[in-house]
């Protein structure tokens, strides 16, 4: 996956209530969820962002509730990848399961600023900040995480497993 977009930067411990507030969870429609993405901490996000833009955050991104509506809202809003210093574990699993590209890079997360033009290349394991000229390398996924991305998420992977059982 290779994507270029404008960075939108947030701080540490961005919780899933901030990503999508519970009052919007009486629907599972990705488009409706996307309309309220980040609303409580950044009301203008949805209007400001362009499809393909990149979300950048500090530590423990996606902490709190297990609501898969959070990565669904981010993905449906058009975000091409989330770069964070690190992720809360349920969010991490959920993002891999639904095919939202996530990258752990404390260096990139610290250096990139809101508004920077950024390219993420998950195959090459690189992040380029075109605004500052900085380049960052990150460890490509391995193990089950890599298999999940390869399969296109958990649904196709389980589909294959179930078919093999028959």
């Amino acid at each position, binding site marked *: 996956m290779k994507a270029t977009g404008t960075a939108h930067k947030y701080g*540490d*411990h961005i*919780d899933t*209530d*901030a990503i999508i*507030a*519970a*009052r919007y*969870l*009486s*629907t*599972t429609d990705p488009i409706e969820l996307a309309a309220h993405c980040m*609303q*409580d*901490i950044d009301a203008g996000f949805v209007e400001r962002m362009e499809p393909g833009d990149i979300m950048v955050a500090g*530590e*423990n991104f996606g*902490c*709190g*509730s*297990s*609501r*898969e*509506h959070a*990565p*669904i809202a981010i993905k449906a809003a058009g975000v091409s990848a989330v770069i964070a210093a*690190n992720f*809360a*574990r*349920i969010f991490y*699993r*959920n993002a891999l*399961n*639904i095919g939202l590209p996530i990258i752990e890079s404390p260096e990139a997360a610290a250096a990139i600023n809101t508004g920077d033009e950024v390219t993420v290349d998950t195959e090459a394991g690189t992040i380029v900040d075109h605004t500052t000229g900085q380049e960052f390398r990150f460890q490509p996924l391995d*193990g*089950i995480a890599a298999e999940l991305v390869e399969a296109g*998420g*958990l*649904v196709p992977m*389980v*589909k294959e*497993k*179930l*078919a093999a059982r028959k």
Partner: protein
Amino acid sequence: MNITEKLLARAAGRDEVKPGEFVNCALDLVLANDITAPIAIDEFYNMGATAVFDPKKVALVCDHSTPNRNIDAAAQTKKVREFARAMGIPNYWEADQGGIEHIILPDKGLVLPGDVVIGADSHTCTYGALGAFSTGVGSTDAGAGMALGECWFRVPETIEVIYTGKLQPWVSGKDLILKLIGEIGVAGARYRALEFKGEVIESLEMAGRFTICNMAIEAGAKNGVVAPDEITLKWIEGRSQREPVVFASDADAQYCRTVEIDCNVLEPQVAFPHLPENTKGISEVGDVPIDQVVIGACTNGRLEDLREAAKVLEGRHVAEGIRCIVIPGSHAIHLEATREGLVERFLEAGCLVSTPTCGPCLGMHMGVLAEGERAIATTNRNFVGRMGHPQSEVYLASPAVAAASAIAGKIAGPED
């Protein structure tokens, strides 16, 4: 090995596991609720599944938006109910059989020591109090769990938390876990297990242990666990036909970190907005006026919690203008609290007593905050906008502190 490693090794059919290894575990229970199950059900069908792996090992609990807060929520619970019927899932309950998921599943004997459980709710870690491995996942993982009866995990490193000394009056499980989160931070146990031990835990009743494990996720933990003992075994008596599997950590078990908390000097704790790690002792709180009090939730909606609150409220009255909402964790608890006279005491004290629901904890309904309003709650999260408007505030505390605050009209300890 430590308990978490033993639990995962058994479910993976292995003699031994080490932190960092990936294991595929057989599941004893898969849970989802009215918010997470609708997506889990869609993905379950998208996976090509036609039947759940074992209807008795799936539980679907509608508790977040119930009693249905609006038409969309009603449609969601309807979808969950119809799926449960279609799949022959016995663990779906209406009305008088129901309540908050993390309270009713242990109460109904659906989780036992030795089990491996996933739930599409982050507070699924609650059941570690029984000596189970139990962790929150998202909807797609829950859908896969329902289809396959298995789930992959990375074996976590474990932090041992040792509570020493003696609990002081009015200090409870909530204070023990808030103190820990204050010490290690909301990411302090990220990707790790928390194993709670020490003399204080050994003498703590199950209600307190559930509260502690419930909030393991608020330190970022994958799971929290307490070694099953006589208190555990006595508590599960008569709840299940299945046999518990009791594990204890070996003498040479490995831990990545040890945290010791001296309870001789531990006072009731309050977590300030907007993270559970912003804890202060009650004596350091200062003057914090409140608008609303919530006593309940999967954290503190058990009968013991209601008794603690009622003890503080006995013969007293909620301060003028304060909305104190008491939410028993299940219909069964509501009934028992009524029989014990607790409900009457709450009503006489000026509290509102609600039907079981997660409602206000996540700002869903039944006590949503307006801009600028402030609540103290026995819930588990105080993130921005958690209980309503993004400019509202939530302070986390025990039932005793919440009740005392309702009387004072500002945050106060039970001794005040």
